[in-house]
C-alpha cells in the first residue's frame, strides 16, 4: 500500500535583500528531499539563493470567516498612514 508524499510549502529568498517569499508547494518524503525538489521546481532561473520548506500540515492559518473581526478595525484608522497628516509646504520635506 503506497503512501502519498506529504505536501510542503516552499519559500525562496532572492539576492536583493527581500524576505523569503512563498512561491508554491510540492510533494516530498522529507525536508531534505523537499529542498532538493524545490531547487528543481522553483529556482530554474536564478530566482533565489535560499530555500525554506515547511510541511503544509504544520501551518496555522487565519480563517476567511474571521475577515471582518480581524481586519475591519484597521479601516477607520487612517491616521496610521503618514499622508493623514498635512504638513505645510514651507516646512519642507518630512
Amino acid at each position, binding site marked *: 500500500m503506497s503512501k502519498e508524499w506529504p505536501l510542503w510549502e516552499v519559500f525562496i529568498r532572492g539576492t536583493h535583500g527581500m524576505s523569503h517569499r512563498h512561491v*508554491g508547494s510540492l510533494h516530498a*518524503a522529507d525536508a531534505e528531499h523537499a529542498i532538493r525538489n524545490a531547487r528543481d521546481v522553483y529556482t*530554474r532561473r536564478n530566482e533565489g539563493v535560499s530555500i525554506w520548506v515547511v510541511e503544509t500540515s504544520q501551518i496555522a492559518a487565519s480563517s476567511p470567516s474571521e475577515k471582518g473581526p480581524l481586519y475591519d478595525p484597521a479601516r477607520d484608522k487612517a491616521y496610521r498612514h503618514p499622508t493623514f497628516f498635512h504638513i505645510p509646504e514651507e516646512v519642507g520635506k518630512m
Partner: protein
Amino acid sequence: MYAQMVKSEATQDDPDMLAAFQARVDAGEKIEPKDWMPAGYRKTLIRQIGQHAHSEIVGQLPEANWIARAPTLERKANLLAKVQDEAGHGLYLYCAVETLGVSRDELTEMLLDGRMKYSSIFNYPTLTWADMGAVGWLVDGAAIMNQVPLQRTSYGPYARSMVRICKEESFHQRQGFHVMMAMVKGSEAQKRMAQDALNRFWYPALMMFGPSDKDSVHSEQSMSWKIKMNTNDELRQKFVDETVPQAEYLGLTIPDEHMKWNEDTGHYDFTEPDWSEFFEVIQGNGPCNVDRIAARQKAWDDGAWVREAMVAHAEKKQSRKSAAE
C-alpha cells in the same frame, strides 16, 4: 486549449451564498482555497486545472522523443530546458488543483484510467526535427494565447501558477520559431521538412482552442465564474491573426487555400479544422493516444518502488532521530 471541453457543473447551492460569491468574482476578488465556493465551481476547476496539468506532463512526451536526436548540443540543451519547464508547469498546476481537495495520486489515477483528459494536441506524433520547431512555435504559441488571460482567473492558486507559467513560456515559443528559422534557411530538403511540419500541426493547433462557440455548451457558466476568460473562437481568431504574418516571414504557406485577409472584419478568414477528427482524438482514437497513456502508466508503475522507498527512508531517518533525542 490545454483544457478543452471542460464541462461546467450545474450548481445547487444556497442562492444567497451564490449571489455573494458571484459578487466577489465580479468585483475582481480572488477566491482562495479556504473560502466558500459553489460545489460546481470546485468541480469544474478540478476538471479544468487537472486537465491542464495532465497536458503539461503528457506534453513532455512528443518532445522528449527528440532530445537524444537534436541536431546540435545547443538545440539539445534548449529542448531539455523546455521539457523540464513543462514538468515544472505540470507540478505548479497539480499543486493548484490539490488545494481544491483532490490528491495527487487520485489525479494521476484519473488520467491513467481515462476519467480525466489532456489536450488533444499531444496525441499527434513528432516525426521530424522540424516538428520541434512547429510544436514550440504553434502549440506553445496557442497555449500562451489562452494562458495569458488566465492570469486574471478568479481562483487564486490557479492565477498564481499561470503567472509563473506565462513568465517561463515565452521562451518556449521563441525557441520553436528559432528552430523554424534555421530550417527555412537550410537546404531545400530542410525547408520542405519545415513546411511539412506546419502542414501537419496547423489544424491540430487550431483544435487546441476547443469546438466552435456555437457548439461550446460549457462556456457561459465558466465565463461568469471567470475561470474561462475568452471564448474559443475569439482565441482561435487571435492565434490565426498573429501566426499568419509569422508564417509569411518564414516563407512558409499555411495549409489553407481559403486563408485570406478580410478588410471589413480586420481579421483573417480561415477554414475551421475538421471537428470530427477532434472528437475522435478526444475519444481516444488519435494517432498516439494509446502510446501516451501507456508511457504514463509505465512511468507510474516503474516509479512505485521509488515512491515507497523514499517514504520508508524518511520514516527510518525520523525514527532514528527520535531515538537519539
